[in-house]
Each structure stands twice: as C-alpha cells, then as structure tokens.
C-alpha cells in the first residue's frame, strides 16, 4: 500500500513537492484554492523570470504539466481544507470543493500556501489607485505578459519611468519590517525589459539599499552598465499630480542631501510580499505556529526550515517568508523528502 500525502497550495513549491512525491509512488492530494495551478506567477501572468529572463511558462508551465500528467496526483481545484484533525501520527482532513466535501486520512502534510503581494493601496502616500499611471510590479508584469506596456492613463508609451523600491517592506508604518528579498531584482529585471522595449524611455530606480543578492547582482550591473538605468538614493515620501499629465515623486536625495520633486510618466511600485490572510487561517486550522511577520514559522529556521512545529506537517515556499521562485521549488523538494520519510516511518 502506498502512502497518502496532502499538499496544500499549487504554486511553485507545492507543485514541485507533489511531482516529486508522485514520482516516489505516493498518492498525492493537491488542494488549490484557485481554479488553476501555478500560484501567483500564473495568477499575475509573470512573463520572464530572473535571473536568466527565461519565459515564466518554461518553469511554471512545465511544473503544471508534470503535476497534471503525473498519475499519482489528484488535484482539487477551487478547494480548501475545511477541517483538520490529528489521528495518531496521521491526519484526517476534509477537502471542501464545489463538488462537495471529501474526508481522507493522510500520512503527512505539506503546507505551501505561498504569499500575497502587498497591496500598495494600503499606503496612501503612493497614490496607488488614485493615479492611473501609478502601478506596481505585478501590474507591470501582467502588462508585459499581455504585451500591453503603455501608460494606463492615455495608452501612449512612457518617456520617463520611476521604480520605487521597498513599498510595503521595511516599513514599520505599514506593519512590515522585513525585506521582501526579490523586489529589487524584479525591479531591475523590469527596468531592463522596459529599456529594451522603449530605448528612449528613461528608467530611474529609487532605493534605500539595492539587495540583488548573490548572482542576481549580475542583473543589477547589466541594468546600469548596458541599459543606463539610473539609481537614485532616497525613498519616495509622496506621489502627487504633476505638469502635463505626469505624476511627481517627492523624495530626498540622501547622497546630495537635498529635496527633489521629479515628474514621471509612470511610476512602478515594487510592492513586497506578505503572508496574506491565508497564513493565519492555515495556522489556526492546522495548529501550526505563525511568526511575528505574519508568515508560517519553521521549527528551526536554520536546521529545518521546511518543518513546522507540528510533527508530520511540513512547510515549503513563500509561506515561511519572502523568497525567489527557485528557492520555493527547492523547498518543495526538501519538504517532499521529509514528508515522505515521515510517512514511511509511521506507516
């Protein structure tokens, strides 16, 4: 008899976990709240992934294909775990979907519920939603994905674009003190794409620190040295309406120590990652810990970042904190290995 393992969340981490378990011969129940697999990258139609600019479909599409064609994976679309109980070393879960509820016993569980993009509308100073030409990175990703990269206000190509880093991150005011890790890299990636698309459109990045860690740094160098993307040190304090249908970014140039108010055709807010409402929900439902940042808390952040505090329940991907897609995929595999070991041991 083969093992039964529950994977909650069909994003990069959950997909990879499910695929790996399936290859081991495990029966996988993959519970996805949306009507499609692929998580945020699919939902917001990410076009190219950093660091090598490969089409997102090469990665996400491939994972979905493997999951959908894997014989041992049962995907529950538009569904959720509505009830969850421990049953000795095993777990009884009720999976609720449009077609009704199903109760099953699982040997172990992988939580891969992912993250939510910070909603920049929550930080009024950025005037997101107020000005059409203020968008955020997920909007830009979608616009690029749909090949519709123009100024939302008038449909014309922009001549001057600002990228604003650390929106909703590293900001006690909005309640998020952590760094979202990928927004810097995503922003330089988008600036490059933009410059390739509109060579005569100027790109400026307003930053406090640029955190393109590891080899992502290559993209940052490329943005500056090959695409003349200009970085300006200073966080933007407010965005107001400017002359000729522009939006004005007001900030302090901390390197020259002086105020600036620069009009732009378009502003892209690098909104960060949050645990989202699903994190506290899954935390209370499964009885696993939530950290002070609103993400799920690993048992030991260094030694076992893929284990929850509850034996048999494992964590993977951005549900434990902001991370790049590649890291999520890696964690999916790590969690799969651990969930499998647990299941086999307690058979």
């Amino acid at each position, binding site marked *: 008899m083969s093992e039964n393992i529950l994977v909650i969340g069909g994003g990069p981490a959950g997909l990879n976990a499910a695929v790996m378990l399936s290859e081991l011969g495990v029966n996988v129940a993959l519970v996805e709240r949306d009507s499609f697999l692929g998580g945020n990258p699919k939902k917001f139609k990410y076009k190219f992934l950093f660091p090598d600019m490969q089409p997102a479909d090469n990665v996400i599409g491939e994972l979905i294909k493997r999951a959908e064609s894997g014989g041992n994976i049962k995907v529950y679309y538009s569904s959720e775990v509505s009830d969850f109980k421990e049953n000795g070393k095993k777990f009884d879960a009720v999976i609720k979907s449009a077609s009704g509820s199903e109760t099953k016993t699982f040997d172990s569980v992988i939580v891969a519920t992912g993250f939510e993009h910070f909603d920049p509308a929550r930080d009024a100073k950025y005037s997101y939603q107020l000005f059409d030409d203020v968008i955020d990175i997920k909007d830009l990703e979608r616009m690029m994905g749909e090949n519709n990269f123009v100024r939302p206000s008038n449909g014309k190509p922009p001549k001057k674009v600002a990228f604003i880093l650390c929106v909703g991150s590293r900001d006690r005011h909005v309640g998020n003190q952590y760094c979202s890790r990928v927004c810097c890299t995503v922003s330089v990636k988008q600036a490059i794409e933009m410059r390739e698309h509109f060579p005569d459109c*100027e790109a*400026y990045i307003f930053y406090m620190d*640029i955190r393109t860690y590891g080899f992502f740094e290559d993209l940052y*160098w490329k943005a*500056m*040295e090959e695409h*003349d993307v*200009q*970085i*300006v*040190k200073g966080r933007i304090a407010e965005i107001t309406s400017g002359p000729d249908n522009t939006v004005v970014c007001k900030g302090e*140039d901390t*390197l*020259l120590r*002086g*105020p*600036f*108010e*620069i*009009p732009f055709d378009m502003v892209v807010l690098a909104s960060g990652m949050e645990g989202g409402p699903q994190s506290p929900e899954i935390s209370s439902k499964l009885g696993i810990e939530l950290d002070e940042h609103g993400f799920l808390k690993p048992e030991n952040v260094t030694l076992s970042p893929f284990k929850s505090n509850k034996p048999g329940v494992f964590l993977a991907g951005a549900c434990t904190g902001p991370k790049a897609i590649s890291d999520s995929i890696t964690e999916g595999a790590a969690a799969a290995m651990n969930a499998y070991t647990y299941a086999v041991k307690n058979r």
Partner: protein
Amino acid sequence: MAIEKHDKENSGGGRPVAEKGEHIVARHLIEDDNIKEEKNLVIDGVDVSGRWNTFIISRVNSEFDRSFFEEIKKTVAGSRINRCWQCGMCTASCTVTPLYRRFNPRAFIYMMQLGNLKELKKYIDVAWRCVGCYKCSQRCPKQVNPAEMMEALALVIKKYFPEEVKTKLKLDEEVKKIYEDMIIGHGRLDLAKLHTYAIQKSGRTKELLGKIERDAIFKMVKDGRAFSVLRLGKPHNWSSSKEAMENYLRKLNTIENTEAGV
C-alpha cells in the same frame, strides 16, 4: 507696481544699510542665492522696502536632466558614467578630499548622472583640484575611472559655466592653455617656459627674482641644463600631426570639441 529709488547708501545719516536677508532669524541656514530682496520697493503706494519684501526661494530639485548624462557618456574620459553606483570608494581613496572639504568625486559623478547643474555650480572652484593620482580608479569596484571622470567634469564646467571659469578658474584655465599650446602646437614641452609663464600668469612675476628661483636658474645655467631646454626643438614634420588632431577635435560630436579651438 511702482518702484521708487532712495539712495540710502549716500544719505549720510549713519544708519547702516541692511544686508540681504539680514533680519531672517535663521539667516545662516539659507544660501545666498536662495534669498531675494528688493532694497527699495513701493507696491500700490505702500513702502515695502527691504525686509518687508524678502522671499526665500525653494531649493527643491525638480529635474533630472538626462541629456547631460548622455553628453558625458559620449566622451572618452566620461564614457563609464553609467557604471557608478555611488559607493564612495573614490572619495574614500582620494588624495585631495582630506585637504578640501568640498572636494568629493563621488558627489560630482552623481551630479553629472542626474544633470544637477544647480548643485554642481556650487563646486566649480574646487572641482578642478583633482591631482590625477588615480587611487580612485585603482580602487573603484566598477572601474568607473573616476580620475578621468574629473576630466569630463572639467569639460562640463567649461561648457556650462564659462563665466565662473573666467573668474574662479582663471589661472587653471590659463595654465591648461599654455600646456595645450605647447603639447599640440610644438609636440614637446618646454618646462622652463611653462614654469615662467605660469608664475607670470598668476601675477607673481616678482617671485622669479626671489632667491629660490634665482638660485635654481643660476644652477641650471651653470650646469648647462638651461641650454638643453633651448635645444629641445620640435618633432620633424609635427604640423601634420597638429592639424590632424585639431581636425579630429573639431569634428567631434561631443563636449570635447567645446575647447577644440586650439
């Protein structure tokens, strides 16, 4: 708006004439250029002379002028301006910064990147103090070559602030001219002539007759080196090189040709 003139300076009443913005409590916090004040002014029949009409002009930077960046990027010396990320390694390495508070290559590069001429103007007098020791270029993690960026900066200042160059950088400009005349014009450098010209240009002709200079000249005359200077001469057929270089400079489509009129 009617303006009435009172000749306060010559009124002889002994009352000192107020300096511009003098009465502002925090006067020392505001730069001169940012204060506007009419000494004598009557509006709608009301005397609002001096402090009654003082205005403080905003110092907000409202433009990033990228054309400027493009201009510098085209020059040989400034071609790597897009690389600079403002880490400050250049200023940290600098030989001159410890001597002159306002000399900051990192900031100069940034002003050029953003086309912030307003700010750059404040540093014209010190911006040419680079000694060309290349410590910055040696250590720059992105090989921006800040030492040569200072050459691009000089070009920029020359093009955009010709008046200030005439007043604040008169000597530098003249010495540079002597160098160029010799180097391009004659193909070789007459060090003795350069030295005397420079001292003359700085208005210190008397110094040439001082003991130190006199001793040195006397020594060189005595040991014969003074005559070797006279024998230096020109490279053979130098004029073809001279013309070729001048033509090249004239044809250049960058700020490098602003001083091409050699």
